[in-house]
């Protein structure tokens, strides 16, 4: 059944998967993908609200927000990959546990 609570559940699951990936995985590229997953979870929530509250004022604004989020997420991913690459060239690894030149 495609209802608002179900859509929000899907969104929360996607978001939580992303959070888990960022917190638990050690490969920088997986972390990057997990961040994208979080943002996609958010997108589902936006679209769901826009779809299920058509009586309110909100419909197109939520869709537009999703498009904006996608564009920004693409920019963020590009910068993120560049940063991972710069770090990889220094350390020859993508294991985030190796990020320990600086602590405390």
């Amino acid at each position, binding site marked *: 059944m495609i209802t608002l609570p179900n859509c929000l559940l899907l*969104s929360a699951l996607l*978001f939580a998967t*992303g*959070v888990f990936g*960022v917190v638990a995985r050690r490969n*920088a590229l997986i*972390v*990057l993908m997990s*961040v994208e997953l*979080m*943002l996609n*979870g*958010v997108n589902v*929530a*936006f679209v*769901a*609200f*826009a779809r299920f*509250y058509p*009586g*309110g*004022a*909100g*419909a*197109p*604004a*939520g869709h*537009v*927000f999703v498009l*904006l*989020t996608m564009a*920004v997420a693409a*920019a*963020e991913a590009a*910068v*993120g990959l*560049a*940063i*991972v690459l*710069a*770090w990889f*060239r*220094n*350390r020859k690894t993508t294991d*985030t546990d190796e*990020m320990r*030149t*600086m*602590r*405390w």
Partner: protein
Amino acid sequence: MPVTAHDVLLLSPFLAILGAAALAVAADLFIGRLERAALPFLSVAGLGAAAMAFVNLWGRNEEAFAGAIRTDDLSIVLGLTAVGATAISVLMSATYVRPAAVDFGEFYGLMLTACAGAVLLAQANDLMMVFLGIEILSISIYCLTGITRDREKSAEAAMKYFIMGAFSTGFLLFGFAFLYGAAASQPASPGALSSACLRLDSLAAIPADNPLLLAGLALFLVGFSFKLGAVPFHAWTPDAYEGAPAPVTGFMSAVVKAGAVGALLRAATIAFPHLAYEWGTLLALLAAATMIVGNLFALAQTNLKRLLAYSSIGHTGYILVGVATSALASDGAGRLQPESLTAVVFYVAAYAVTTVGSFGIISLLSRPGAELEDVSHFAGLASRRPLAAAAMTLFMASLAGIPPTAGFIGKFLIFKEAVSSPETLWLALIGIATSMLSAYYYLKIVVAMYMRAPEKGEEFGLTSERWGAGFALALSAAGTVLLGVVPMRLIEWSAAAIRELGHLL
């Protein structure tokens, strides 16, 4: 909804900065390595144009783009703070980025886009613009943090900052989705645009017990605490500050605060005045933790950039004290106490002018491959570089809150309001205690400069183009003293900016 000339006029400072950024990047394609020395001046010219545009818009307090942005006095005071801090940082960075061979147009372009992001954030009047402002600001600063990409520390700092920043953006955006859902579930007013439910002021009309609104507010606060570096979301701050090139560090500590505080104040007064008690209590707890953790960890540091990073966390705590006070001293019916918000605006400006100066000294004395980092590197600086040592002493005094400096007035204003309301007395006491504690580590630097003999082989000197940096340092020092000696003008401007927001006692 066509774009009118009025819309463009109200957005003109942002456009001027973006234009200068595009010019700096494009010009780099056509000029040689030597002519790159002109890029800082091109950037400063763009920032000057933005500043003039801001001054031109003072007192108008109008909305543009169907209410998506609002150019009011708050955005002008904080926007000018960001523009000024950027100009000073740009002038100071030349001595650092040239020897490091990262003085290409993109460096200045990124500084300008970050500044444009902060300006947009201070002007943002709906959720979309807040998000856009934060992302323009953050993405530019991720790049700037890692711009000396052959330095392992720089790359690592960029990695950490990026991961934590993107992670926090996810939370913030999830909060925005909930806020949007809460607004969209309300009955629409006839004839209203669809985007009206993204506006910050539409959130104030939602009943305070709406669960989506409460969840959205909580995630909003988490996201902003990350950006401002408030405990317990501060873990990225010391690493990002240490790894970033010195001129970038000062820049980001000042500009991020100016933009984020602008959005926070606007959200507090326009979007969530009816939830003041809830977010006020949360912010008070965050503020207490932030002041204590920031200042205690700073005590143990010998690395100067990390020390100043923890000090910046402490200062975030003082800023949050002001915001929390305005909520806890509110009348409970959605009207906030204005004087402490005025103090917050003043504090941000005072902190910005001081912090870009202190990091300016560090960048002035650093060379590529030989960052001036340890407190011991400052030993005997007074005998070799008396002016730099005197300026650093002034900045440390301002950060510690010793009169007659900007930092003293800022702290005085914030604590005066916090003391006068019984709900926040405890916050003020923690603040005063931690800021007395902080004098120890700031004075440690002064003692090293004036009372220690220089260490052998640690000759931190300077290369070329000092006069641009010297001018910027002089500006920063003058600002620190002027705001301390004649603060009334800025206090009046800040008060005018806050008064105009509404929902006040």
